[in-house]
């Protein structure tokens, strides 16, 4: 199922995130250089590029998670829904409710399956018992995990398999009703069957969410994304419809990378 978007579509779609002149520094070391990109709304955008090119660094700006480390610093503009989220006045809690993040390794909280989902919900909403369990069920269904865990919601989350844990983390991110979901190599630590499930899940998410997916797996990018950005040494070299990037890249580096000549 390839729904790869076209160049025209990319221009015509409203953008969820508009990045302008983004520079990023780890202490004195610069990791991103003048990044500019418009992430289309309700589409899947893949970010590819060789290891260390700044893919993770880039998406970690969108929810300002990098701020947990005092030497990390971003400059420029990242406009989400018309608001520059790099401004100091932005409410981080609210931002992170709107921008969910999935990490390379599953990160279940040390609590039960139910509580893993309920935790984020309870941080943001005042909900009664029945509504809470309804919403947990709903999130687990949308995370394509419900059937596998409905009989053991009270069990600790780390008793699940790696693939299940990762879907749990996706469900947890979905539960707070984000509009944008960032995934940083969500399948790199799990087996092919679990990967296929998560790819299917990403396809269904496209209807309601904007997804940014960092991946090392070229086939995965081609399979699930509408648009693809190629990063190299901290620069965004090329951004366009996935089909076009993979069949007819405009830049030499992109072509070298996707044909496996380096990276």
């Amino acid at each position, binding site marked *: 199922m390839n729904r790869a978007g076209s160049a025209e579509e990319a221009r015509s779609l409203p953008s969820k995130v508009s990045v302008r002149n983004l520079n990023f520094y780890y202490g004195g070391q610069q990791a991103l250089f003048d990044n500019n990109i418009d992430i289309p709304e309700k589409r899947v955008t893949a970010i590819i590029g060789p290891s260390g090119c700044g893919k993770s660094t880039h998406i970690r700006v969108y929810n300002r998670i990098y701020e947990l480390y005092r030497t990390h610093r971003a400059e420029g503009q990242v406009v989400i829904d018309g608001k520059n989220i790099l401004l100091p006045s932005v409410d981080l809690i609210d931002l992170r409710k709107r921008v969910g993040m999935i990490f390379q390794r599953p990160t279940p909280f040390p609590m039960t399956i139910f509580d893993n989902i309920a935790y*984020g919900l309870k941080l943001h909403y005042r909900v009664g018992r029945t509504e809470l369990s309804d919403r947990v069920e709903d999130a687990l269904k949308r995370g394509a995990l419900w059937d596998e865990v409905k009989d053991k919601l009270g069990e600790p989350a780390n008793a699940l398999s790696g693939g299940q844990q990762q879907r749990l983390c996706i469900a947890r991110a979905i539960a707070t009703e984000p509009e944008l979901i960032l995934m940083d190599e969500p399948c790199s630590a799990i087996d092919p069957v679990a990967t296929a499930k998560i790819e299917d899940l990403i396809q269904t998410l496209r209807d309601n969410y904007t997804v940014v997916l960092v991946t090392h797996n070229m086939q995965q990018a081609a399979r699930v994304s509408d648009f693809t950005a190629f990063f190299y040494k901290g620069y965004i070299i090329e951004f366009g419809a996935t089909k076009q990037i993979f069949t007819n890249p405009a830049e030499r580096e992109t072509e070298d990378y996707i044909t496996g000549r380096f990276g």
Partner: protein
Amino acid sequence: MNETTRQRRVDRAFRILTASCALVVIVLMGGILFELLRNSGMSMKEFGFGFLTSDAWNPGAGEFGAASSIFGTVVSTAIAMLLAVPLSLIIAIYLVEVAHPRVSKIVGGGIELLAAVPSIIYGMWGLFVFAALMQEHVQPWLGRWFGFLPLFQGPPMGIGMLTAGLILTLMVLPFITAVTRDVLQMVPPVLKESAHGVGATMWEATRHIALKYGRRGIVGAVFLGFGRALGETMAVTFVIGNSHRISSSLFDAGNTIASSLANEFNEASEPIYLSSLFELALVLFGLTLLFQTLAHFWVSRMQRQEAGSR
């Protein structure tokens, strides 16, 4: 000789060596227990179970009872744990989650240093500096504002149960803090990031995720401090006042099992006196064992809860 038989022999020798080292521990335990039992036999025969409930302690009259020592041990340890546990957690959280790395390093180093200070030094400092501070400032203040409580009545003498409890607090604080800090540092950064990622504040991420993730290690740290407070001898002996009585006021002098032992072994001329001290030691041994066992069950219950269902 072929490879596998040689290997098997080496393995066997290794097993025997390690097992015999472990055996030494068991033998030592058994030996201590046996000696304590043997030496306290006379006192047991004389006072029976009443030894544990009587607070009489008149070496001249040949009357001995452990109640005041048990009371003092429990109260001073309770004061120490009540104050040290929350304080240690707060300091550890500050060091790991809040403080600038440089500050964290300096303060953390200081804490480790404090943990290494020999207890006799705490005792001397407690007697010469801290007790005076207590007498002149802390106790009068407590008496003025909280004097309606029986806990804070009576003349401020500097030394006494409260001072002993506070010295113990200062002694176990660095222990619990250092271990808790290490436990919190072991929490994977990505787990904390996920907590912040769903919109937790620093406090929420720490309380719900980091502390929970490390809770077994933290309970271990608390019990380490607890064991130290329970058996601490020198520092307490210096500041507790060493009187065998049970008082409702924390300003009054008291004693603990360990402090009595340290204080009185030299003076124990009568066989029954000596035997009573041995029985006192046996009680401390038993108390320690009891709490260690409780701790053990608690931790393993926690483990089961983690593994099993809600």
